[in-house]
């Protein structure tokens, strides 16, 4: 892991402006989900059923007399238009609600254990601050974007922590022992690879029992995502191990009498480190996309938990989106996260693997 400690690596990585900006965006994204409770005006479970599909709140800084004022907003009132059979939202201009910054509101926990109730901004109840409107249950889309990000942006990494060790060990064993072991192990990996991955993904997700707690479901979805990814990775590792295992240092440790498992995990696999780092950064976006696709279909993370994929589920009906375009916001966040991960991943690969094709 010396590469990571090396300052040159970071310097090279930040030299390109686009890569640098991408890294900053990624850091911001992860900071914002770490402090989701602070940034989000409302808690995960908050909902105002009277205001389902309310449009985004408008923030005013100039008051009725045309003078500059502290930012304030109006509430929406739902009215029914019986002639056109349509629900309209009108601003109720009778009562101003001033935005309050760093004031106390709903309770939440930082990192899951430090209790806190300070919010970046809020308005006093019964005022409502819906920066990106609300969904069908009257929940604040803006707040849920951050809670959803907590799942969407971490599930990929967690899946990697399962699939990569499996792939490494599997490929390592197959490559090191060779012969029949290798043949059988690789045929199994190939069988998994030859099922179209998305077909396998949805079939596995569909067999999850319905009555699970959200944490169980989260864990099982992570495992399923990991089950899809390890096979292809293990094949590349095996190829590398095949060429490493004939080198002298492996002979040397054999002569000392080290066990096979020790030789594989301590001497051979560390040689693949730079490939593994590149493969990890390049496969995170794939996991993010897979989770969002699964949740979008309703097979992944379930309501009332938020994930960017299942928030987009409401956008499946295009009538919904035509009149409520704010429901599309999670899609743009997925796009930004995947884009920045790809850019950073490419840059990492260019540095660690100079022979790679894609040049900037």
């Amino acid at each position, binding site marked *: 892991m010396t590469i990571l400690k090396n300052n040159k690596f970071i310097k090279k990585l930040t030299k390109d402006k*686009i890569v640098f900006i991408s890294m900053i965006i990624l850091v911001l994204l992860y900071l914002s989900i770490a402090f989701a409770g602070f940034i989000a005006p409302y808690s995960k479970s908050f909902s105002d059923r009277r205001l389902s599909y309310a449009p985004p709140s408008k923030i005013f800084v100039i008051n009725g007399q045309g003078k500059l004022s502290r930012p304030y907003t109006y509430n929406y009132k739902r009215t029914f238009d019986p002639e056109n059979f349509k629900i309209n939202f009108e601003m109720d201009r009778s009562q101003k609600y001033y935005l309050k910054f760093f004031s106390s509101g709903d309770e939440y926990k930082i990192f899951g254990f430090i209790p806190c109730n300070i919010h970046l901004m809020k308005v006093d109840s019964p005022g409502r601050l819906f920066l990106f409107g609300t969904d069908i249950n009257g929940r604040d889309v803006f707040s849920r974007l951050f809670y959803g990000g907590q799942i969407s942006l971490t599930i990929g990494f967690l899946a990697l922590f399962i699939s990569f060790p499996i792939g490494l060990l599997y490929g390592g064993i197959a490559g090191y022992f060779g012969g029949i072991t290798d043949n059988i192990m690789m045929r199994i990996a190939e069988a998994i690879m030859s*099922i179209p991955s998305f077909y396998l993904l949805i079939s596995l997700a569909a067999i999850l029992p319905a009555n699970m707690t959200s944490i169980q479901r989260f864990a099982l979805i992570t495992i399923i995502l990991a089950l899809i990814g390890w096979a292809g990775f293990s094949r590349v590792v095996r190829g590398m191990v095949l060429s490493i295992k004939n080198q002298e240092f492996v002979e040397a440790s054999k002569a000392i009498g080290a066990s096979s498992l020790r030789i594989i995990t301590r001497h051979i696999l560390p040689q693949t480190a730079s490939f593994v780092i590149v493969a990890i950064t390049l496969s995170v976006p794939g996991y993010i996309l897979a989770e969002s696709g699964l949740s979008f279909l309703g097979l992944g993370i379930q309501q009332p938990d938020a994930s960017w994929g299942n928030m987009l589920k409401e956008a499946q009906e295009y009538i919904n989106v035509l009149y409520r375009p704010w429901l599309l916001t999670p899609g743009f966040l997925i796009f930004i996260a995947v884009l920045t991960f790809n850019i950073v991943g490419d840059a990492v690969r260019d540095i660690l693997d100079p022979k790679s094709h894609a040049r900037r």
Partner: protein
Amino acid sequence: MSIPVYILKRILQAIPLLIMVSIISFVIIKLSPVDPLAELKLNPAISPQVLQSEKQRLGLDLPVQMQYFNWAGNFIKGDLGVSTSGEKVADRLTERIPNTLLLMICVIIITWLIAIPLGIYSALHWKSTFDRFLTIICSMGMAVPTFFLALLLLIFAVKTGWFPVGGLTSVGFDAFNPLHKILDVAHHLILPVTVLAVASLAGLQRQMRGNLLDVLESDYVKMARAKGLPENKVIYKHAVRNALNPLVTLLGFEFASLLSGAALTEFVLQYPGLGRLILEAVMKSDINLVMASLMIGTVMLIAGNLIADILLKFVDPRVNLD
């Protein structure tokens, strides 16, 4: 090795693979908590005797391995069973597979027609403004989730009314004349093809650019230049042809990712393809249909890889088939 022998060998190799895939999918299905008889059990009008005979008819009273052999035997005979809605699974598949194949072939042709010239241009004008611009556009194209792009295009289609939404044919398709029929199908294909092409275009363009950059540095290109060949000839006769070879191998991978990407696109755009069929089957826990779709998807993938390998033999005579 001649090509027919090679194909035969690959098919023989595919058989154990398919057996393994079938075991994997059978285990998955058996792990499913859904009881195929649940609906009958809840119905008070159905007596225990009927339930028992139904169980026997479906073979659910047999041990698991016997159930598997029954299913596999029927599968080989071409009997894929009956879906929950009572239709023959084989019929539903034969109705959907051509649609998905049509979609994928259109996507592959279009991506190659666009991506290869763009890749060549980018490589020849390496680090120019246009190359940088293309690189950014391509990264963006790779980052859009297919279902999100499909949603955006769907809204676009509904707002403008320029494209039909859902299906592959318009109402009254059977009465159209042949030319009208082709145009109608093409009109319906535009949206799904665009969605899938955007996703795979970017990867292909970048690959072509990288390959050509590599080839342009090789000795034989320098040699060709040194002996005074015109630059056009050097590039299009020597460099581009060699840069194309790795792309042909990639065709197999492209096929795999298209098959997966097509499922979500077909779902959002209501396109009657295999991907949407398996999605609907999974949601309804239609076991026979899911099993058969998994198997057919795998067969398509293996066939795609085989075709890619044979194509490679045609473009690059140096390749040994063995």
